[in-house]
């Protein structure tokens, strides 16, 4: 059984039995009223259609010169669409542009709207091997739209095999890495390598010895970030040395971690260090545990532990942020000998102010090589020096060119300075 409502909603069913359109309530009126009503409706519809089409045709002019080009230095996953602004895109009228895209001759779909005065859109969601066409429509205020501007031919993104913006950076990396490898090989063949003493690393044994003598535990904090940060890895390399010495001296070492992956790595590291020290029974997994990922929750726990347990030595080696001073000052307050190290330049002053020894930036990364005393690892430290020489040459060259450009703003020096700044240095890490 069908309801009357469903018949009216369905246009096929809203017909009288003879097949003509059925207009509710009108057909029952006198003929002249019905005829007049129909004429009025027709007139209204014609006026509406005409006024709408004339508004969209005359109110907003379309963008012109629609061009699609490949996005350079990518894996065929981007295209750049450019156009000339609609003449109606004036400061007093905000004209938006809507971009439509067709993939491999399929359906057109709207992919973005860009604000006024924009003549470029970067489509970063392309796939290699597919062909794309674009349409751009200018949208005026009150919903007026321009005619379409459309690309004539489909465009396929092109695969680039090398990111040319990074070639200079690649050359610098190759030089530094090559120097490191050469120095490592030289060290393997017996070349003598001098590495300056690093006070903070020399003091590791002293700190562990002090904790042993005092019969108090030690605290090791490997930063608050995960294993994907190289500072955390560098911190773990020092942890293995501290754990080995602690096992030899039979001192207790507490390692609360802020990341569970770091906890598992620290447990492995300490277990192996205890085995290497010949004291496997010294390894206590209960002392290496996960606290929380939350930065200040972790700080609250560690500071509380320090205040209660009063460790004799504290090691803060890894990646630190605002918590660096909270941890170091609490350790200072309980009278612990403190050794810290981080590559966060903004946190170094806090560690310097509150700790006894601080590994400044590169010293943290040199720690494992320094502590191992293996020639091939020490060779990598020497390789770094070649990088420093290169950095000095670039610095001096850059300063000379910049100074020269001040006195001669035009000419070869200015061009060389521009190339040096924009191409060699600026885009290197882009």
């Amino acid at each position: 059984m069908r309801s009357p409502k469903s018949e009216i909603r369905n246009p096929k069913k809203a017909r009288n039995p003879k097949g003509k359109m059925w207009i509710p309530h009108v057909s029952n009126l006198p003929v002249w009223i019905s005829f007049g009503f129909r004429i009025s409706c027709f007139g209204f519809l014609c006026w509406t259609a005409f006024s709408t089409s004339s508004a969209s045709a005359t109110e907003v002019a379309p963008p012109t010169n629609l061009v699609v080009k490949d996005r350079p230095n990518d894996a065929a996953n981007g295209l750049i669409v450019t156009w000339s602004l609609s003449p109606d895109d004036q400061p007093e009228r905000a004209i938006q542009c809507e971009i439509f895209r067709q993939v491999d001759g399929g359906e057109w779909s709207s992919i973005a709207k860009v604000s006024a005065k924009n003549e470029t859109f970067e489509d970063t969601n392309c796939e290699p091997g597919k062909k794309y066409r674009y349409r751009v429509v200018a949208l005026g205020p009150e919903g007026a739209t321009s005619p379409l501007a459309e690309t004539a031919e489909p465009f396929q993104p092109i695969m680039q095999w090398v990111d040319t913006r990074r070639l200079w950076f690649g050359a610098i990396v190759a030089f530094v890495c090559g120097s490191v490898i050469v120095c490592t090989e030289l060290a393997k063949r017996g070349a003598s390598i001098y590495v300056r003493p690093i006070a903070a690393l020399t003091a590791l044994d002293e700190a562990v010895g002090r904790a042993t003598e005092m019969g108090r535990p030690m605290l090791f904090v490997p930063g608050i970030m995960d294993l994907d940060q190289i500072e955390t890895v560098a911190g773990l390399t020092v942890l293995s040395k501290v754990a080995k010495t602690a096992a030899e001296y039979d001192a207790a070492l507490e390692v609360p971690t802020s990341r569970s992956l770091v906890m598992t790595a620290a447990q492995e590291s300490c277990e192996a260090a205890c085995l290497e020290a010949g004291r496997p029974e010294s390894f206590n997994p209960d002392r290496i545990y996960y606290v929380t990922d939350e930065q200040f929750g972790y700080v609250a726990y560690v500071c509380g532990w320090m205040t209660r347990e009063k460790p004799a030595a504290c090691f803060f080696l890894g990646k630190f942020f605002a918590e660096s001073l909270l941890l170091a000052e609490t350790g200072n307050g309980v009278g612990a000998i403190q050794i810290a190290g981080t590559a966060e330049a903004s946190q170094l002053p806090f560690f310097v102010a509150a700790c006894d020894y601080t590994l400044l930036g590169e010293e943290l990364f040199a720690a494992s090589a320094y502590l191992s005393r293996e020639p091939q690892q020490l060779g990598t430290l020497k390789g770094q020096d070649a990088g420093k020489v290169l950095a000095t040459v670039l610095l001096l060259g850059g300063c000379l060119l910049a100074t020269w450009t001040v006195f001669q703003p035009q000419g070869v020096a200015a061009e060389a300075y521009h190339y040096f700044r924009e191409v060699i240095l600026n885009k290197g890490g882009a």
Partner: protein
Amino acid sequence: MKRTIPAVIAGVSGTVMIIAFFIPPAQKWQQTAEIWFTILAAIAFLIGGTNLCLHHLKKVAHQQAGWGFSAVTLVAFLVTVFVGMTKWGVPAAEKFPDYAWSGNYLEEGGGLWWLYEYIMSPIIATMFSLLAFYVASAAFRAFRAKNVEAMLLLVTAFIVLLGRTYAGTVLTSWVPESMSALTFPGMTGVIMAVFTTAGQRAIMLGIALGIAAISLRIILGLDRSYLGSDKD
């Protein structure tokens, strides 16, 4: 073997990252490596949660020193997990009003949102605000004029501190415009832009080279101490 396989994984992942930086088609490999890291981190989070419960349960069971804190930690952990998992107090999503669990678990007004807004957030703010007192105590110790270097540090800090306040501007307001570099704000600007920046950049250069060297040691397998030992 226990240390060789992780070292090989680290070496291969590191090499892929370097290649992907210079060769765009290899960026997919980089994304795959990053996805694997995320998967591992998620699994490790389960291990971390389990470790947290076991660690504090042991403390409570043996009534070790500070076991009361462990009890509070356990209760807070379990309550938060329960409220989050059951979407306690979360209204249904507008799209699916007939499904009570369709709302976002962090929806405003929900249980987890309430816990974060009214318990976590004030506690975090309290911990962070402690920093002001620690800065004062560290500065007091660092600026004691024990030798020439400490004197220089003290004078520099005095200038920068004054230059950053309104008092510094008022105190040197009589200095003529042509000598504005000698006002406290002027001197502060020079110290921050020239001396501090130069020092920081030197440290940053060393850090960059240090990262390159340690990365190379790990990729080449020369340094395995992060696995506990350099020996197989």
